[in-house]
């Protein structure tokens, strides 16, 4: 099976438990050889050492944004992709990674030294508060059927077809 070109994708992870990364890798149990022909995994730190985040067709982004470095990185990802898709609950809604946002004063004081030491933002944010998000695949973890259906849709959108 040959394809005319591949969809150039990145899979990124910020503050979260990486459950959707796990689901994505489990989907490979059935899809690996098909995806190897259709997708160019340009950035996928969980599985690769050499990664390139430039000129992506789609960036799949899991997790919420909790420190300034993550904020800079997700903005850089946005500049380097045509479509950015929020994956899973933390990326789509901020929760549960954003639980510190609703801590009371004394609990906040208890954790403040860590927030200061590691340059955390004032609050943890869902992706759409930081960058433009083109699509949302929600769930904790993401719903695998919805993901597969959207991926098919993206392949069509980008003209990736079996030759």
């Amino acid at each position, binding site marked *: 099976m040959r394809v005319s070109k591949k969809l150039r994708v990145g899979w990124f*992870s*910020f*503050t*979260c*438990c*990486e*459950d*959707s*990364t*796990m*689901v994505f*890798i*489990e989907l*490979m*149990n*059935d899809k*690996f*050889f098909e995806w*190897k022909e259709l997708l160019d*995994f340009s950035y*996928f*730190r*969980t*599985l*690769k*050492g*050499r990664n390139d985040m430039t000129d992506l067709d789609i960036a799949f982004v899991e997790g919420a944004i*909790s*420190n300034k470095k*993550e904020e800079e990185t997700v903005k850089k990802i946005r500049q380097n992709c045509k479509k950015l898709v929020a994956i899973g609950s933390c990326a789509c809604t901020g929760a*549960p*990674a954003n*639980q*510190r946002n609703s*801590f009371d004063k004394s*609990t906040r004081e*208890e*954790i403040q030294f*860590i927030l200061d*030491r*590691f340059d*955390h933002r004032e609050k943890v944010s869902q992706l759409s508060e930081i960058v433009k998000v083109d699509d949302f695949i929600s769930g*904790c*973890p993401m719903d695998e059927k919805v993901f597969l259906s959207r991926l098919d849709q993206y392949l069509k959108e980008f003209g990736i077809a079996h030759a």
Partner: protein
Amino acid sequence: MHDSMDINIEQISKTEGHADLEVKVRSGKVQDVKLKISENKRFYTQAVRNRHFVSVPQFVSRICGTCSIAHLTCSMEAVEKCLGVTPSAQTELLRKLAIYGMMIRDHALHLYFFCLPDIFKVDSVFEFDKSKDQIVKQAFAVKGAGNNLSKVVAGRAVHATYERIGSFSHIPSGEETSVLIKELKSVREHVLELIKIFNDCDFAFNRNTTFVALITKDYSFLEGKIQSSNGAVIKEDDYWDHLSRVVIPYSQAVGFTFKGDEFMVGALARMNLNRNTLHKKTRKDAREFLKVFPSNNIYHNNLAQAIEILHCIDHSIQLLEENEFKEEAPPAVKAKEGRGIGVIEAPRGTLYHMLELDKAGKVKFANFVIPTAQNQIKMEKDIAAVIPEILDMTKHDIHHELEKVVRAYDPCMSCASHFLRIKWNRSFV
């Protein structure tokens, strides 16, 4: 030979996530090593306070995607002990099966996709050539068998839904268990091949340490006493008397010592201390490979993981063949003030969840001790010890060797992969 150099590794990624490494070498000697776990804290210890016990296990399952069933099960145990609930014998069997499914999937991912590329000298599974198609298919079959075992028994492989306090909300049917047995039997030969690959691998790094694990009667990861290689035997309730928190200012995770010393938890510790309780079929078919234990070679952690996959398959087949699962009424569960400690073996080592509940059943205080945090001090010392041995390598190879050492621990799913991004800032003398 690099006589003096600074290594700044940014974003080793996460602990199931991110970590950084800084190394300073002067006049051929390691002056400083900082392994910084930089995974952003989500403050579960604080966020769980005031939650009602019913919602706690599902909530803390979200600490980790890859070993969520371990956190879920450990939390269930903590709540049950606090409330004086005794799970039924069937519930204990189903928990063993859920844990086995997780172990098979989790270990298989680490071994096939994070470690095998090192052995085959490629960057990733995506670079395996056609000659490796067979083993890639085997990898997905083994991983899939673990995934399906968890799905049938626990509802999902990630953030499982059937497990509840004292019971399961869904019982697998005879038809479902027959399919599982067939699938598990079909992948057994693949696992024997995997064990041989890790047995034949010549990677080695030896350094004496103390090993600690929960010693179970049937290597089922769930109940027993905490034991160490230097002879300590500790009841679960007394866990905190022997663990000491070590604040590591540059790391977002605290480290731990055991009776004041660095130590290691995980598959190597379990295999060193408890291999005689492996399933009899596993002991028979892995007899030659078990001879290397006890071992201080950190790379034997991966051989131990491969043998554990075989054990999980063998014991699961036996449990599924010998038991018929039936619907049963859940035990009565009533709020009660108290303290409960769950201790289990997660894929990466001993996991502790301690909960204190108030009269209304809400959490007053919680303490979670995570395996990778327990290994943090030893990992850092191993890195310091290995550097002098590799200073004559190219910078690319030093980078790779440091990755391999950290990866051998399987510190967590995402950070166990190829995660080091080194900024080189060297001075040669």
